[in-house]
């Protein structure tokens, strides 16, 4: 391997690169929350200076999370994680499997005074008690007799060194699962009128619709409200059919998706269909003067040639204010366009003065004529979101590994203890040395306990 090749490898596996990449990912993610994204970007980009807009577009700042550079950053993080783990894992593995030396003279040479204790017990007895304590708390324990006296060694929690590798492997799986979902996943929506059937999935991202090999029928859509007006329930009663036979039927609610044909369906949205009959009526100086059923594009005369009306639009639920139609009315001298809402009384009550502020919403704009709208046979349509994400199980496994790994890192540490029990006049002298890869406070406590265990004076503890 050449030198520069080698240096490149070291760079790829370095913690510095990890820190740089993570910072850049965080920064990129931040940009995406400040700059309007995707659909919302359109209005925003119109207000930008053209030079700035071109720059933003070139940098894909209107779709940060799907931009080439963001995907590249995530891919590099994955490479970095793999390289780093390949570098360090063998070392960690050696520490885990490395065995427990029976004695560590190097540690005892410079042991702090408070790691020693005199005991009235005989060395053998003190060693027995310490060994009992060791066995209770540590997995592996050895006992040897040397020229220095009795040597005990104990070790526990070596596996906790694996914790970080679980975390890192988990993150790799999260990234892989995310990519798998983006590449092989499917996301779209289906609109079905009450009583209607649909078999076309409108795909996200402007792709051609996909025809399903089954049909979905919506038998009923139900919406309920609390007294405060807040929504309480959205429910679609669905039937899934193949070759005209119902294979599955069930209620789809928000938070209760249904699975069918490899897709998972979610209650996403709904609306009112102008499918019922819309009746427009009008009064002149508060006296009823006529009415008729209307459809978009209709043109008709007001009585006595007072004006011509054209129905421009018919909406089932305009701006969440219910059914409305847009009219254009002219008598040759005056010409108005305005909306006629079915629930104009409620709208006026909730927004006093609205008709004066927004003439477009005033059904009496063409005075002295006043229009009103009525619906009969109103129907709903439901909007289902459909998704298939082959990456989801990978993501779930990754998240599990990250969490399991983190818990291992937090709750366990790799601890090793070496104890020497020497003969002393009138008893024994105990020395305890310990090492831990984290949690110095816990190590300290355990050393105190081990020292105390070898002393009859503290038998109770």
């Amino acid at each position, binding site marked *: 391997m050449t030198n520069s090749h080698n240096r490149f490898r070291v760079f790829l596996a370095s913690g510095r690169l990890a820190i740089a990449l*993570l910072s850049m*990912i965080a920064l990129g*993610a931040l940009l995406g929350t400040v700059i309007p994204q995707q659909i919302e970007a359109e209005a925003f980009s119109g207000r930008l200076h053209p030079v700035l807009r071109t720059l933003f577009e070139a940098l894909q700042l209107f779709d940060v999370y799907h931009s080439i550079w963001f995907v590249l950053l995530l891919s590099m993080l994955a490479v970095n994680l793999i390289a780093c783990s390949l570098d360090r894992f063998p070392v960690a593995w050696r520490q885990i499997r490395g065995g427990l030396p029976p004695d560590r003279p190097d540690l005892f040479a410079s042991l702090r005074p408070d790691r020693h204790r005199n005991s009235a017990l005989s060395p053998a007895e003190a060693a027995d008690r310490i060994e009992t304590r060791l066995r209770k708390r540590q997995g592996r324990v050895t006992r040897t007799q040397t020229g220095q006296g009795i040597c005990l060694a104990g070790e526990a929690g070596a596996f906790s060194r694996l914790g970080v590798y679980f975390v890192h492997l988990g993150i790799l799986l999260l990234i892989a699962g995310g990519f798998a979902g983006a590449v092989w996943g499917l*996301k779209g929506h289906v609109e079905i009128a009450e009583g209607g059937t649909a078999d076309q999935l409108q795909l996200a991202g402007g792709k051609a619709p996909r025809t399903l090999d089954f049909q979905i029928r919506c038998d009923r859509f139900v919406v309920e409200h609390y007294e405060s007006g*807040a929504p309480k329930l959205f429910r679609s009663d669905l039937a899934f059919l193949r070759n005209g036979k119902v294979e599955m039927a069930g209620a789809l609610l928000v*938070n209760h*998706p249904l699975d069918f044909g490899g897709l998972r369906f979610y209650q996403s949205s709904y609306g009112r269909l102008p499918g019922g009959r819309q009746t427009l009526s009008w009064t002149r100086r508060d006296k009823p003067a006529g009415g008729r059923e209307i459809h978009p594009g209709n043109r008709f005369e007001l009585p006595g040639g007072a004006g011509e009306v054209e129905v421009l639009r018919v909406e089932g639920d305009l701006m969440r204010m219910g059914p409305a139609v847009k009219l254009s009315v002219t008598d040759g001298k005056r010409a108005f366009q305005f909306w006629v809402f079915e629930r104009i009384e409620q709208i006026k009550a909730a927004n006093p003065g609205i008709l004066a502020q927004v003439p477009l919403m005033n059904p009496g704009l063409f005075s002295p004529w006043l229009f009103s709208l009525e619906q009969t046979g109103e129907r709903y349509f439901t909007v289902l979101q459909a998704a298939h994400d082959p990456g989801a199980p990978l993501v779930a496994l990754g998240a599990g590994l990250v969490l399991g790994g983190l818990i291992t890192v937090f709750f366990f540490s790799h601890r090793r203890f070496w104890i020497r029990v020497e003969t002393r006049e009138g008893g024994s002298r105990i020395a305890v040395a310990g090492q831990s890869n984290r949690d110095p406070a816990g190590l300290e406590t355990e050393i105190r306990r081990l020292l105390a265990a070898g002393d009859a004076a503290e038998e109770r503890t």
Partner: protein
Amino acid sequence: MSDTLIIGWTTFVYLASFAFYLVRMVHGRERWSAPASWLARIGFAMHSAALLLRWKNSYDLGIGHAPLSNFYESLVFFSWSILFIHLILEGRSKIRGLGTFLMPVAFLLLAYASMVPGVNNRIQPLIPALQSNWLTVHVLTCFLGYAFFAAAFALGIMILLKSDASAGVGGRLRQRIPADDALEELLYQGALLGFIFLSLGIATGSIWAHSAWGSYWSWDPKETWSLITWIVYALMLHARAVRGWRGKRMAWLSLFGFASVLFTYLGVNYLNSLHSYF
């Protein structure tokens, strides 16, 4: 008695506790720490009672759900979690100074909940998207995580005060703050535990989103900011584990991290978001 009234009173108890902690630190008299701790405990008991009462009241109204479903309830629960962690830390570590920096955070959250007019403290029924058991688990884990980060933040301030020789109140104040090593270790543990809970919070949130919206991750601003916060703390843990950072640098990172937490919690409301009902 209404739960919101108890919360109102609790706010003042926390303020009083904070005042005692502050007097103790500034005057360097240990005797002030007993009333400070007791007030914190009494406040916590009232606070817990109010939470339970609100829970019960929601059932009496026929819309029963855990009191974790709107902005007011989240503020109250955030504050409760901070007290919970404060009392545990104080009991286990014997570090009294922590209250001087944690109580004001708990107090401010409650004051915001009780006194800012825009915060609706009524018990509201759950809209369909919130009708999920994951809501409870998600909010619980997120706010416990936030509370651990708040503790790390308080410890960070203590470390900075201790190491800053020119700190206004001078030597006496610094004497009241325990040794750096103990603070440092606690800060690290707080950040790591917060990180675990935040990870759990993000995971449970994803599961919930997966069943409510059909996608476990949709780069909504709140989700994205929780990821940013998660990365900030991951960087902090790495700075320590890989680059050996300690002391003041870790303290600054804990301040920086908590700023990110607060933005995730509050700032995101100014960006448009699926989570904006919070």
